């Protein structure tokens, strides 16, 4: 037995070809929107993870460090107390680093570098090595001899693994100079970074430049998705308050404002494109629904004559539009989800943008993944398209005069 719902459903399929085309357009819009949103989600996650793996989620430094020129002024006072606070207040792991402007020399050549002595928890150390170590190994935590250099820096200095490396750090509070052995070569996506990177253990750097000193503490939270980044908004000010006025707590956003800005733009951009897709599909829906009304003018006239009120007629039209859009959305959505599931195991983008992409932190393999709001947002678009497309035809239908409609023969 029928109800107005199934009446609308049957009415849609009176013109199979036209309705299929229209539903197909809505389905396509749903498909592409889901696909782009999941692609965007994947890009966000991997850019975020790459970025935070290398700079941390939060960084503790001396307040106003950007303006400070003296090495001494950059040292964090009371590193041990700061670490005690971090242990009490966060579930993050952290890297303690001492950054020293220094001169690195081989037997024949020398270069200015930013020497970094760091101490990383095992997991972060492993991740760092996996990502950047090209040859050899990283200096061990208590290693006072080993040094790792950017591969291009080592090449420029004519150094190979095992060679002695001389480091001068004048104007600091430690020994100011030291001889090390090249144990590892590092490769970074950015050429400039590779050309001026030199890594010691924290202990070795402290001995060289500042006993017990550190200039930067890098916090790594156990996040795997960009959506978790929202938690920083709570943690960051809490930490800043507890560490007091001499220290600043910055997030990766302040460290990489350009990327932060791109993140803020990506989703709105995709949504604007989605709105355009759905707008075009919506025009087809209006056309289909309106033509359907015109063809059925007499029939609608009979319905109104039999007592269907304006609201009932309008509801029928809206229902037709919604059914048309949602049948497209169901098919497009199902295909979209299947595609995303099929590609969630990762697919390579190298072919698309080549090796250059990794310089900008673009991932070479993308794992499509949907974010919590992606499906509701997409379905919301389909629903809104159905409603907006029905608005005008529904008004026309609600104003139908039965006597005139029944005289209408076309």
């Amino acid at each position, binding site marked *: 037995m029928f109800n*107005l719902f199934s009446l609308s459903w049957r009415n849609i399929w009176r013109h199979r070809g036209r309705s299929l085309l229209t539903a197909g357009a809505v389905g396509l819009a749903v498909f592409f929107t889901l696909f782009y949103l999941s692609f965007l989600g994947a890009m966000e996650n991997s850019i975020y993870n790459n970025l935070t793996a290398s700079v941390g989620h939060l960084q503790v430094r001396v307040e106003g460090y950007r303006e400070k020129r003296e090495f001494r002024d950059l040292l964090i006072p009371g590193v041990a107390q700061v670490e005690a606070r971090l242990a009490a207040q966060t579930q993050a792991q952290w890297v303690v680093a001492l950054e020293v402007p220094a001169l690195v020399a081989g037997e024949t050549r020398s270069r200015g570098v930013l020497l970094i002595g760091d101490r990383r928890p095992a997991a972060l150390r492993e991740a760092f090595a996996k990502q950047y170590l090209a040859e050899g190994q990283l200096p061990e935590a208590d290693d006072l001899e080993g040094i790792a250099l950017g591969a291009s820096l080592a090449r420029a200095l004519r150094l190979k693994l095992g060679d002695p490396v001389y480091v001068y750090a004048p104007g600091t509070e430690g020994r100011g100079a030291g001889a090390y052995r090249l144990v590892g070569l590092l490769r970074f996506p950015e050429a400039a970074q590779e050309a001026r990177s030199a890594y010691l253990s924290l202990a070795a750097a402290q001995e060289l430049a500042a006993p017990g000193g550190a200039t930067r503490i890098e916090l790594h939270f156990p996040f795997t998705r960009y959506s978790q980044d929202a938690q920083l908004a709570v943690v960051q000010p809490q930490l800043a308050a507890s560490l007091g006025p001499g220290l600043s707590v910055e997030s990766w956003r302040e460290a990489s404002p350009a990327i932060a800005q791109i993140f803020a733009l990506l989703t709105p951009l995709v949504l604007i494109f989605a709105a355009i897709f759905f707008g075009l599909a919506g025009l087809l829906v209006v056309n289909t629904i309106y033509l359907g009304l015109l063809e059925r003018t007499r029939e609608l006239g009979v319905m109104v004559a039999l007592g269907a009120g304006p609201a009932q007629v309008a509801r029928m039209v809206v229902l037709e539009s919604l059914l048309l859009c949602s049948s497209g959305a169901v098919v497009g959505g199902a295909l979209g989800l299947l595609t995303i599931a099929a590609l969630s195991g990762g697919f390579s983008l190298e072919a698309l943008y080549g090796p250059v992409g990794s310089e900008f932190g673009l991932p070479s393999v993308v794992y499509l993944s949907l974010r919590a709001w992606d499906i509701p947002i997409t379905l919301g678009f389909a629903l809104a398209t159905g409603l907006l497309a029905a608005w005008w035809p529904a008004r026309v239908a609600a104003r139908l005069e039965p006597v005139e409609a029944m005289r209408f023969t076309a």
Partner: protein
Amino acid sequence: MQPLLQTKQLTKVYRVDAIETPALRGVNLEIYPGEFTALAGPSGSGKSTLLYLMGGLDKPTAGEVWLGGQRIDGLSKAQLAQLRLWQVGFVFQAYNLIPVLTALENAAFVLELRGEPREVREAKALEALQVLGMQDYAHRRPNQLSGGQQQRVAVARALAARPKIILADEPTANLDSKTGLALIEHMRSLNREQGITFVFSTHDPRLLERVDRIVRLEDGQIAA
């Protein structure tokens, strides 16, 4: 006895692009409960117009329409829709049925609009189809029915809703005369057996022999 339906000085002037066509010119008509009335008259005499005004499908230019003691000519569009839904049954000339619905669903259509529960409307619609001998065709779509069968379904639809009155505008116009006659016979027996009041228009003189009351229209007026 109170008339079931009454028109007083009913006047309708159609106005299209500043051209005025007087369709009804002061019609006074009374229809009593249980009557079986035919509206006769040449083409353009105003039969359809009169039926439309009596059923609240359109508003008169002047004059009054009373249905069951209620004056209906001044009602709003929405009120008229309610009135038609609950009190008036219609059968039109042709293409009366909704093509995507089966005979049974068509017969239940008005009940569906009223929001009656499914079992109730199904039972009533089936009963009405039975009365018109259409129960075997209940699950056919209109395009699988003959013209006469379609009109019987249209009458069943009106019947299933139990209106005060059924107005039929040339229900036989698209039927051959034998089928047309059979349809009128069906209506006639509903009128006799269930006391349903019918007003229908026709210009087939042979049908007029089956009717107790004939109202002749000429030029928008009731002819003497």
